[in-house]
């Protein structure tokens, strides 16, 4: 028996009490396992696994800096991974089909489950660690951690209002209008200035939420009250909550074509 070196593990969780608890549960279920290090975030975990070269790493999914899934990606194929989570239904479904194991917090509540995990790990230590490609892709998608994510549009505009910097939710904004060097942000209650030109802004805003109607004007679609024509046939947008009238340039006339 002494011919085999003792198996080693690193525990990563941002809460010390949680690490202590996993260590205590493991001690009972698998006394031979040697804990060679503890990490409090994903980055530390990756560094520690690379320096200590343990057989197993227990990774909490929710960790600051770099989460458990990103850490697992960085460590794929180098170490056997067990994910630890308190309550992530998506993650659990994903694990159940995967080659990698998971533990539910609190581990102490279910010693049999911990024992089962240890048994599986003992068997798997003889093989090379699984690269977990499919599982990680699936997890990233489900938990939105890194990897493939739908495009994120601006939901808040950081703007100066007087001497303060405020975060204005885009749902409060009636329209943006270019003014000299600045862009004016108009809400029903106040106006603010930002430096970002309309040209850049339009790329960051959700095209379903905001429409550009003029080279210098972007309006929130839901804020449009009515569209009328002036005597020369130009379309004029009236915005709910503001007396200002916004001209639609010909390039954007098609936006308000009659149904």
């Amino acid at each position, binding site marked *: 028996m002494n011919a085999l070196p003792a198996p080693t593990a690193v525990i990563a969780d941002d809460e010390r009490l949680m690490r202590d*608890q996993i260590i205590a549960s493991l001690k009972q279920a698998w006394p031979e396992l040697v804990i060679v290090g503890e990490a409090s975030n994903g980055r530390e975990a990756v560094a520690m696994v690379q320096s200590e070269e343990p057989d197993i790493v227990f990774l909490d999914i929710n960790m600051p800096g770099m989460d458990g899934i990103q850490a697992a990606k960085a460590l794929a194929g180098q170490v056997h991974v067990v994910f630890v989570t308190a309550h992530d239904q998506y993650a659990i479904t994903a694990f159940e089909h995967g080659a990698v194991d998971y533990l539910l917090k609190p581990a102490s509540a279910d010693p049999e489950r911990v024992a089962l995990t240890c048994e599986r790990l003992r068997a798997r230590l003889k093989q090379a660690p699984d690269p977990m490609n499919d599982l990680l892709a699936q997890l990233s998608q489900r938990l939105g951690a890194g990897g493939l994510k739908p495009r994120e549009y601006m939901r808040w505009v950081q703007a100066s209002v007087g001497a303060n910097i405020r975060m204005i939710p885009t749902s409060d904004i009636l329209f943006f209008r270019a003014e000299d060097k600045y862009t004016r942000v108009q809400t029903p209650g106040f106006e603010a200035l930002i430096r970002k030109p309309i040209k850049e802004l339009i790329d960051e805003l959700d095209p379903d939420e905001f429409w550009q109607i003029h080279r210098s004007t972007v309006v929130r679609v839901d804020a449009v009250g009515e569209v009328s024509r002036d005597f020369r046939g130009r379309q004029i947008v009236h915005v709910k909550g503001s007396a200002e*009238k916004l001209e639609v340039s010909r390039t954007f006339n098609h936006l308000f074509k009659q149904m």
Partner: protein
Amino acid sequence: MNTDQRSPGTDDAAETGKSGPGSRQSGARQTLQEIGDGIAAAWWRFFDWLAVVSWKKLLLVSLLALILGGILKHPDPVFMFIIASFIMKAVAGGKRRAELTASAATMRAEKEQLERTVLEARMEALQAQIEPHFLFNTLASIDQLIQTDPPRASKMQQSLIRYLRSAMPQMRDGSRPSLGQQINLCTAFLEIMAVRMEERLQPVVSVPEGLKSAVFPSMMLQTLVENAIKHGLEPKPEGGRLEIGAEIVDGQLAVHVLDTGMGFMPSAEAGVGLANVRERLKALYNGRAELIISVPPAGGTCATIKVPYEIAPASPPP
């Protein structure tokens, strides 16, 4: 209500023409356009006036115009114009009435929408009140402390009980919650989180005793505190400070939650939490309350809720 909105082609549009893309027009054309815009503006103003003016006043003005026409010895065109005005008034008056009905209907629909939102928000608050993640993690921490530090385990369990107790009755009775109740709830929550996060969370609650009896809506402060931890401090490896403060500003009660965490992400989805707070404030105070998210000079995030300052009636003993 919207007489202004019905007059297109007025000064604003003319200004846009000047500063907008069409500015490379020749001077002559521009002058013509301005004259055109002026006439159009005057015409629409007259039309609007006609639509809203009372028949009595219109008669009086017509009489004056006729007399003026008589003096100038051209009563015929004036008379024609007056007849035309009366016809237009008849037509435009109908349009105006239709508009009023339409705007009343819109307001009714908006009110109903708001009532629905409040109901939904209340349901959601009921369901989402105690996040399972939080509960499981806290129980796991208590379990660990029972092994290693029983007195602390007991203290944490008491905090959890206080938290659960103060979180529950708020939704049941319709009584108006006070700021003090909300602070107690948040303090219990912060005590729990401080045990779990250790030095990564430094909570500071500085609310003057005198303000604790003020009326403050339920579950809003809690949302701000949870956000500050979840999005501000937990994702930051070294953690930071979380401060709850309250003051009276211009007759309004302003309660803020400030954290020195990650800072606000402009692309962050408004989130159910903040959106709920905004909707509920709108429904409860009808524009007299607001939620402001600002960026403190030192970084992090500061969320402030401003509501009208009122003293809560003393709550009956349980």
